Each structure stands twice: as structure tokens, then as C-alpha cells.
């Protein structure tokens, strides 16, 4: 919200410069987000020296002045100010100057005498409302020097962040009240018109809940004209345009007291009546912005006897607005149910200064004063004659009384960490117009209606803390620590897995939780796949971000695409994050599963001189997954299977009955959907099916002290045989097997069609003694026998 410094000064003395005030307000809880300096609202005004003053031949009250304004010859200027005198240094608006309020200076005849400019008063320069006489300047300078920026009075406008709990700060008086409390200064309340209730008018409210208070003030003999320059300048400084004296006066009160007002042309009201009621279904109104809007019973309207004339708290209607020929006015100052205003604003998509304030709840205590203030301003401007009696309906008069809220001094000190006395706290609160009296441990506080955010003790504690100053609260002793850190073992395991993958050359990435619903098709997930039915966001930013991810893969494929385009040659990345699967888990919320997915693309090793480069392949992926399972202590338990309906080259790793991981080649069609034309391998591990972390500690086992005996074994088997079968037989047969490695694998070629060979290095070791070659030979024979029997294997010899 915009607040102008010179406007504030109408209600509270401020000596501080704008930057100091901004800093102090911010530390007081009124956050100043920016300060804008506006140039003084005039151009073309120069310093002049009055050389001679003579009577105007045709008018007693005018003088003819000769003024040195820096030009080749002095100017002749007609001046009406009583205080003009020879020798005075004055502000001269020369031909072409533009004054506050937009007046452009031309050479003109005044009562028959040519005037070549104008000697200015403060009001004409927009410096104040004082137009009683011309300004006498006391600063040095040559005649003709520009006066722009010379008054040090150029306007400063603060951009304030007002939090939703403090609607009372949405106006200049409210901010001035904070400043008065901050600097302990006296607040000057603006003058009001002497307004009383009892006016004769046909005013009706259907529901006191919808509209707890409504005040209608009346103005006769209206003369529509521009408002004075000072008012226009203040309104413009906070971003409101000047319209006419009546509208400007109501806007001025809005920005001054925070109460939105609306002026109706009284002669346009059917049967001179106003009723506040719910709109009827299908009822229509053309609002001030010229748009026809359809209403419904969820919207509160102001109506006359015939039709709606305003959307309550949002915007007035065009039919009843103030026009150039308006003669009589009804000025509305009311309070509406914030929820109804919010509803209307959302339904009609109509954000206004009024709706903003009504939604945050108007101050029910100020309706009459706000109307009286508008009457006063209108009266002072000569824009109309206010009636001394207004019409008013107040649903419950208790609502406009001060409430009492109490605070326990001990509790306040406990929350703040201070040792203040009751009187100290009362004095702090008093500064905010929260009149307080302390008795023992209790402070009773009388709450004005504009502080409707203060409902209970804790609200007062905050106010006390704020005035006392957060910066004055603090203890010297270091923080207590009676509670000790508990870090879930799962979190530590997660961190260690990440550390492991990082050391294996993976880049950790973090991608969006959102997914493009079209990705389910791109990924080729069919209807039976849970991942094909993501949760949808009802109000997404874009279609591509309208679903929640059911898998980390689409996001990671996007990362591969981006980095392929960026010509990154080795791509090895992983993400550890949540996926969201429909199917309620608890209280209607979806299942959130923690996954770890890794992708392998392009080259798997850096380009270097000592070895050839390699493309990432299936076994890169499998090796890293196996290493990860080893780290998790699951290398033995996890079983790799080929799923029955498995499309393409995808495998599952099962743990117990659950799927622990999926991995393989991203189908070519899928990679192409993501604009990547080289093969991409992946695994996707579910962390939530892992056994609890930190449960089993490894147990030490003594290592054998005896030497190992190694034998290499090369066998040829039919092409349909798999390594896993061979390994299982070897393991089953051997008694002293210590380790088994396959270090060569060969298919076809000189073996002949339909054959393959594996070469193993077997290592045998006993924990009871050194194995002799006879024992090892026996082991190997037993293994070979079983392989021949069960798989038809033959020893390869050459």
C-alpha cells in the first residue's frame, strides 16, 4: 500500500527523513518495502526578484509588478497577493510553466493589463494548502534559476506491506498512529462535520449479519468541480487519479481513515430509498466500469426500490453515479460481512480498493466519523451543503464499544523472555491507544474498535513486545538444551546412499514434483500401470504442470534431454525424491513413495588417453545397482526377475514379495519422445520397501588364516543356458568355495552355432587348514560333473 510522507505529516509531527522513518517503521513491524521520491508537482518555475510594485490601474486588490526572472528584460506580472513587495525573492511561473493541479501559464491580459507570468503561493506549487500569499524565498541564487527540487519538500511515497491482520494500517491515520506510538508523539485527529443520527430517509437492511452498520449522509446544493490542487496532489501521490470534488473527497477519506465511502446521486434513487439485501438470482447491474454483471444470492447488494445500485463493498452502479449535473447526494459509509465481499469479489473478478479493505473487515466504530469527515471536506471545498442529520442503522450497539482483554504479566514475561513490571507493560500498550491499567499480575486493556485483531492475551503480548522492541529482548546465557537430537536412521541411510552415488560419479539432480499428464503416454505406461493415472491439480499453472509425478523418470529424461543439448558427453545422474500415487493411504491423502532413480546415458567414462572410451550400457546400470544393494546389505536377498508382461528390456528386483527396483533400457520409442537418440539405461529403486534402517548390526566373523587356491575353469554350454544357473550349481556343489568371478564370456564364432562359453576363476579356501591340490581337484571334479549332468556343459580345451 502506498503512503505519502506529507500526507502523514497532517496527523503526526515527523522530523525524521524518509529513510530513517522507513527503517524505524520496519523495525516496528510495519514493513516498508520501498521509498519512491516524487518530483515536486510543477515545472518551469524560476527564482525571481521583485524590482518594483505599482497599483493595478483597474483593480484595487491587484498589483503590477516588475520582476527580474533572469531574462534579457524584466517581466511585467499582475499579482493579487497582499504581501508582495519590492526586493522580495519569489517563485515565478514563466510562460510555459505547469503548476500543481495542471494549470499551464500563458501570457494573458488581467483586467486590461498583460501579465507575463505568475508569482506563486505555496498552494500553487503544491507545497501546502496555503494560498493566502506568495512565498518569500530566503535562499540565494541568480534570478532565472530553476526551482524544481529546491524546496526539499519533494514528496516521498512509502510502499508498505500491510499484513492481513492489520486492516487498520491501510490508511494514513493508521500509519500515523503507529508513528505516534513509535516516537511517543501526539496524534492529531482530523476535524469532522458535526453529524448526528435521526435523518429522515427510507433505509432498510435485510440482515444485520450481512450488514452490521450502515450510515447514509446527505448533501444538497452540490456543485461538481475539480477538487483543490493540494487534494489532487495527495491523491495522485498514492496513485489515485483526480476525478471531481465529490469523488476525490470520498477517496481522500478512504486513504485518510481507511473507510471506503460511496456517493450516490440521490435524485436517481427510485422512491428515495436504499435497501441492503442479497441479490436475486439472475439480477443484473452495470457497474461503474461499464460492465454488465449478473448477480446471485451469494452476493450482497445495495438497492433502491427498483434495482441494485451497487455491489456491496465492491463497486457502485453506473446508473446512480455522481455526474456533472448531480445536485443531491447520499454518502454511504457502511460495514459488510467480509465473507460476502470476498465472495462477490471472487465471483465477479473485481478487485477494488474498497473490496480489499472490506474483506479485511471494516472498523465498525468509524462509519459515522468517516461520513462526517467527508461532509466536512465537501463543505470546506464549497462543493455542497451537508445535512446535520444522517440516517443510520446499527445492528448491535455493543459492537461499537471498547472491549476489554486482559494479560497476565507473568505469562507475558514468560513468552517474551523479559522481566517487565505490570506498569511497564501497561505503559507500552498505552502508546498504541490501548488504554491499560495494571493490577498485580494482571493488565486490563481497553481495545478500540479499530484493533479487531486483538482478541486475547497473546495478541497483547505481541503488541507489548513490539513496542518494547524485539531488539531489546535477548538473553546473555547461551541457549538451553534439555532435548537431544534424534535423527531417524532412515535419514542417515538416505544421506549415505546419496554420498555413495556421488562418489560413483553421479550428479544429484532435483526435478519438479509436477508432471505433464501427456508424459504417461510418452512413457508408454498402460492403463493397468498405476503410474498412468496421476493426481491432477484443479488449478494448475500450465497443462504441463497439471499432474503430480508418479515416477521420477519423466523428469530425469527431461534432464538428459537438456544436457544432451548442452553437449554434455557423460551423463550419469540420479534423483532421490517423492512420487505421488493415487489410492488413498490415510485420510484421503495419496500414497507418497520415496524413490531413488538413476539414469545412464552417452559415455560412461571420461575421454582419456590410457583406454578406449565406452558408451554407457546395461551392465554399467546393473553394476551400480548391485553395488547399491551391497551397501544396503541386500545383495543376497534381492532377486532379479523378468516380469511376465515385461515389455522391452526391463527387469525387476524383488525383495520378499515386493518390487524393490525396476531397471533396464528405456525403450527406444520413449527416448525419442524425449528427443534423445542414444540409448538410456536406468534403475528406479523404492526406498519405502527397504527394511528398517539401523536394525541389524553386522557381526564380526573370523577370517581364514590359510591360503587360497585358485583354479580357472572354462566351460561351453548351449546358448539357452544362463550364467546364473551355472553359478548356482557351482555354489551348491563346492564345499570350500571362497569366491567366484566370471572373467570371460563368448558366444557363437568358432564355438559353433548355438553355443556359449564362460570362464570362471574359482578361489577355494578352508578355515580349518591349508587345502591340498587333491582336495581342490575333487571340488572341481564334483562341480564339472554336476554341470555336465544338469546343463550338458563341457570343459573347453585349447
Amino acid at each position, binding site marked *: 500500500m502506498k503512503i505519502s510522507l506529507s500526507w502523514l505529516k497532517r496527523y503526526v509531527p515527523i522530523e525524521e527523513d524518509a529513510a530513517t522513518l522507513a527503517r524505524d517503521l520496519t523495525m516496528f*513491524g510495519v514493513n516498508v518495502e520501498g521509498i519512491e521520491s516524487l518530483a515536486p508537482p510543477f515545472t518551469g518555475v524560476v527564482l525571481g526578484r521583485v524590482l518594483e510594485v505599482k497599483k493595478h490601474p483597474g483593480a484595487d486588490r491587484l498589483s503590477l509588478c516588475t520582476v527580474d526572472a533572469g531574462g534579457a528584460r524584466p517581466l511585467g506580472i499582475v499579482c493579487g497577493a497582499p504581501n508582495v513587495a519590492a526586493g522580495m525573492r519569489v517563485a515565478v511561473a514563466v510562460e510555459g510553466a505547469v503548476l500543481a493541479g495542471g494549470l499551464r501559464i500563458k501570457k494573458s491580459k488581467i483586467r486590461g493589463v498583460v501579465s507575463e507570468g505568475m508569482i506563486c503561493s505555496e498552494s500553487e506549487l503544491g507545497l501546502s494548502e496555503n494560498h493566502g500569499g506568495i512565498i518569500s524565498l530566503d535562499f540565494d541564487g541568480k534570478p532565472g534559476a530553476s526551482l524544481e527540487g529546491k524546496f526539499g519538500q519533494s514528496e516521498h511515497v512509502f510502499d508498505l506491506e500491510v499484513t492481513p491482520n492489520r486492516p487498520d494500517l491501510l490508511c494514513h491515520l493508521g500509519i500515523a498512529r503507529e508513528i505516534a506510538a513509535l516516537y511517543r508523539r501526539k496524534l492529531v485527529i482530523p476535524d469532522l462535520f458535526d453529524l448526528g443520527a435521526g435523518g429522515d430517509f427510507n433505509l432498510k437492511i435485510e440482515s444485520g449479519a450481512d450488514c452490521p452498520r450502515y450510515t447514509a449522509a446527505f448533501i444538497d446544493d452540490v456543485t461538481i468541480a475539480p477538487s483543490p490542487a493540494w487534494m489532487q496532489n495527495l491523491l495522485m501521490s498514492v496513485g489515485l487519479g483526480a476525478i471531481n470534488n465529490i469523488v476525490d473527497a470520498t477517496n481522500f477519506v478512504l486513504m485518510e481513515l481507511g473507510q471506503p465511502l460511496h456517493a450516490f446521486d440521490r435524485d436517481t434513487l427510485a422512491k428515495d430509498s436504499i435497501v441492503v439485501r442479497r441479490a436475486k438470482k439472475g439480477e443484473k447491474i452495470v457497474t461503474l466500469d461499464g460492465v454488465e454483471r449478473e448477480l446471485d444470492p451469494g452476493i450482497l447488494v445495495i438497492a433502491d426500490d427498483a434495482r441494485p445500485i451497487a455491489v456491496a463493498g465492491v463497486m457502485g452502479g453506473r446508473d446512480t453515479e455522481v455526474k456533472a449535473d448531480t445536485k443531491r447526494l447520499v454518502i454511504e459509509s457502511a460495514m459488510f460481512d467480509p465473507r460476502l465481499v470476498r465472495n462477490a469479489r471472487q465471483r465477479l473478478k473485481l478487485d477494488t480498493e474498497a473490496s480489499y479493505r472490506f474483506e479485511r473487515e471494516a472498523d465498525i466504530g468509524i462509519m459515522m466519523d468517516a461520513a462526517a469527515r467527508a461532509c466536512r471536506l465537501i463543505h470546506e471545498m464549497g462543493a455542497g451543503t451537508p445535512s446535520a442529520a444522517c440516517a443510520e442503522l446499527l445492528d448491535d450497539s455493543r459492537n461499537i464499544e471498547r472491549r476489554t482483554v486482559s494479560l497476565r504479566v507473568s505469562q507475558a514475561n*514468560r513468552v517474551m523472555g523479559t522481566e517487565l513490571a505490570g506498569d511497564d507493560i501497561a505503559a507500552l500498550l498505552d502508546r498504541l491507544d490501548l488504554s491499560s491499567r495494571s493490577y498485580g499480575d494482571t493488565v486490563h486493556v481497553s481495545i478500540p474498535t479499530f484493533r479487531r485483531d486483538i482478541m486475547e492475551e497473546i495478541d497483547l*503480548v505481541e503488541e507489548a513486545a513490539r513496542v518494547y522492541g524485539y531488539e531489546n529482548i535477548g538473553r546473555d546465557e547461551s*541457549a538451553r538444551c534439555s532435548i537431544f537430537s534424534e535423527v531417524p536412521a532412515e535419514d542417515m541411510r538416505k544421506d549415505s546412499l546419496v554420498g555413495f552415488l556421488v*562418489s560413483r560419479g553421479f550428479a544429484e539432480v532435483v526435478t519438479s514434483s509436477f508432471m505433464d499428464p501427456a508424459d504417461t503416454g510418452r512413457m508408454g505406461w498402460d492403463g493397468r500401470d498405476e503410474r498412468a493415472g496421476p*493426481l491432477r491439480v484443479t488449478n494448475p499453472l500450465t497443462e504441463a504442470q497439471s499432474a503430480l509425478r508418479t515416477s521420477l523418470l519423466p523428469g530425469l529424461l527431461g534432464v538428459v534431454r537438456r544436457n544432451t543439448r548442452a553437449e554434455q558427453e557423460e551423463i550419469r545422474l540420479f534423483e532421490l525424491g517423492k512420487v505421488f500415487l493415487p489410492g488413498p493411504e490415510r485420510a484421503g*491423502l495419496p500414497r507418497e513413495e520415496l524413490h531413488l532413480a538413476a539414469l545412464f546415458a552417452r559415455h560412461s567414462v571420461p575421454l582419456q588417453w590410457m583406454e578406449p572410451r565406452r558408451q554407457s550400457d546395461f551392465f554399467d546400470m546393473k553394476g551400480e545397482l548391485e553395488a547399491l544393494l551391497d551397501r544396503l546389505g541386500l545383495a543376497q536377498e534381492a532377486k532379479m526377475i523378468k516380469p511376465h508382461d515385461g515389455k522391452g528390456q526391463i527387469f525387476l528386483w524383488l525383495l520378499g514379495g515386493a518390487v524393490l527396483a525396476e531397471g533396464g533400457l528405456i525403450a527406444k520409442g520413449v527416448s525419442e519422445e524425449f528427443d534423445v537418440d542414444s540409448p538410456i539405461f536406468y534403475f528406479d529403486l523404492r526406498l519405502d520397501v527397504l527394511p528398517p534402517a539401523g536394525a541389524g548390526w553386522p557381526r564380526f566373523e573370523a577370517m581364514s588364516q590359510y591360503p587360497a587356491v585358485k583354479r580357472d575353469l572354462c566351460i561351453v554350454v548351449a546358448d539357452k543356458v544362463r550364467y546364473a544357473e551355472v553359478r548356482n550349481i557351482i555354489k551348491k556343489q563346492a564345499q570350500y568355495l571362497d569366491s567366484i568371478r566370471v572373467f570371460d564370456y563368448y558366444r557363437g564364432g568358432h564355438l559353433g552355432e548355438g553355443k556359449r562359453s564362460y570362464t570362471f576363476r574359482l578361489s577355494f579356501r578352508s578355515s580349518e587348514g591349508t587345502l591340498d591340490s587333491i582336495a581342490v581337484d575333487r571340488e572341481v571334479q564334483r562341480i564339472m560333473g554336476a554341470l555336465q549332468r544338469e546343463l550338458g556343459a563341457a570343459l573347453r580345451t585349447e
Partner: protein
Amino acid sequence: MSERPDRFGVDDIAERAEKAFAEAVDLDALEEARVRFIGRKGEITTLLRSIGSLPNEERPAFGDLVNDLRERILGLYERRKGALSEGAAEEDYFSGDPTLPGRRVLLGGRHVLHQVLRDIKRIFFGMGYSLAEGPDVELDYYNFEALNFPPDHPSRDTQDTFYIDRDILLRTQTSPVQVRYMEKHKPPLRIIVPGRVYRNESPDPSHASEFLQMEGLYVDRNVSLADLRNDMTYFVRAFFGSDAKVRFRPHFFPFTEPSAEADMSCFACRGSGCSICGRTGWIEIMGAGMVHPHVFRNAGYDPDAYTGFAFGLGLDRIAMLKYGIDDIRRLLANDLRFLRQFWAETAGEVFE
């Protein structure tokens, strides 16, 4: 000899020679260095030839000096040659060129956001905080109502929300975990809650529609605003350096009262005002406050028996500040050239 003034400006030759010999990785390189210093056209020879330009009475001293120098360099050369020859006598283990790059595996690294999260977690774990987590897809009740945001209240407008349906939304803050955790645990408790949060805002360089936040909550019998300031000051100094200052400004959050925003002194300009801190000398880093009694009641705690504080940090913002990242959207874009910049282990030690 060393205390003698270096009258002829020649003493550094020996040092340079020693350095050159040390840098020679094999005998060939050493020979090249030897020639440069004590070869027939080397620096020492050149120096000796310059003797002619000296006055007669200076010549003997100068001659002695240069000869001493030559002896010293020769000694250094012989020592180095001995060391290199020992290696050379064995097999050539470096293919004739030990300056070739070593065999490398790929370098990996944590994402900068998670690096920041890890560093911050470590600090809070050290202070006695435990870890808690909650769902991203959350009930309206926990995200708003239980946190004292009334339905249809403008305070909800400050957090534009993504909805799944009427009652279910994407959490806009990590604060819902406060009530969830308190429902299940009795005080005293002291937790941090990192997690992703969502705001329905059009992205720009400083706003993202999803980002990482970390909540903190401390509840016990006499937790005060003073404790909050102490903990936050400790954290900021531990993370940003021991000269960082913290200030608290009053603010509003529905679920805390008194509420505050905390600023830290700008690490770039040290408080004098620069473009990073918007010329104020301060940078906003968190929201905080004393847990509102309504929130305690919603969680089943007695607000007269317990007090507590809560705080929330935006980790994306902290990462951006710490590393000078210009656009929040880079964080989820995952360009490897971006990610690699933060892989070096530069995580600050506590109170470096």
C-alpha cells in the same frame, strides 16, 4: 654467507635453480634446467662475463661470490640428479611421461539445494533438534485451519494454493507438520522439518511454484522469544560466518504470535548497503514467532502449560544468496554445467 648483504643482486639465482630442479620430473627435464643455470651459456656464465663492467676493486669479491654460487647450484643439481637416477634405474612406470593426466573416474556431486539442506541440518542436529517430515499432498485442515487461518480469510491470499480437491491441496508451507507432530508427540520437543512446498505463482527469477522450505519447532514449559533469538542467531552465524548479525522485525503470521521476520546482515557489503541487500544492509532470511495458543489447542496442548517457537527458512533463497545464483529456476533445471559449480567441498565449518 647468508648474512652478507646481496650486493650484486644475485642471491635469488640459487633459489630459482633449486625450484627448477625440484620441478624437473625426470633426468631429461633436469638436464635442461642444469644447462639453463650452469651450462656454457647459462646464467652463471653470463654473470661471470659481466665482471668486466665492475670497478677493479670490486672484481675479486664478485668473482668469489659467483664461484660460491656456482658451487651451491652444482650441489643442488647433484642431489636432485641422485634422487631422479634412483627412480630411473627401475622400470618406467609412467610411460615416459608422468605429466600425463591420471586415470580418472567421473566426478559426481550433490545438488546445491541438498548440499545447503545437509549443512543446515547438521547445524540444527548439533543444537539438539530432531528430524520430522510430512506429506506434500496435505489436508486443508493441517495446512490452514489448524494453523489459525480461518476459512475464507484474506490471510490465505498471501499463499496462492494448488488444490487437488476441496479439502486436499499441495502444502504451501512445511508448517502443517507442526500440528501433525504435536498430535503424536508430547513436549518437550525440538524438531526441524525440511520439505518441498508449492505456491500457485507464475515463476520469475525470484519466485518458483515449488521450492524447498525448512520448518523448526521448539516446545517446552518456558520457551521464550529470547530463546528463539538465541537459536536463530547461532544458526545464522554457524552457517554464514561468525561475524553475521541478526535482527528481528515484528511481522504477522496467523500461527505465531508474537511474529517476526529475521534479517541477517548482508554478507556481501557487511551492512553498508549494496545491490544484493537492496541498499539496506540487511537480507530477509526467515519468518518466525511464538506458537499461537490456538495452534497449541488444535494440537491438544495446554497453552498455559507450554510455550514454543517456530521458524521457517526458504532453502532455495538461502542457496541463491550464499552462492550468488541469479535465477531460482536454475535450481530445478539441472544443467550439469550449473550443478558442477557447487560440487567442491566448500561447506563452511561451524564458526570458521
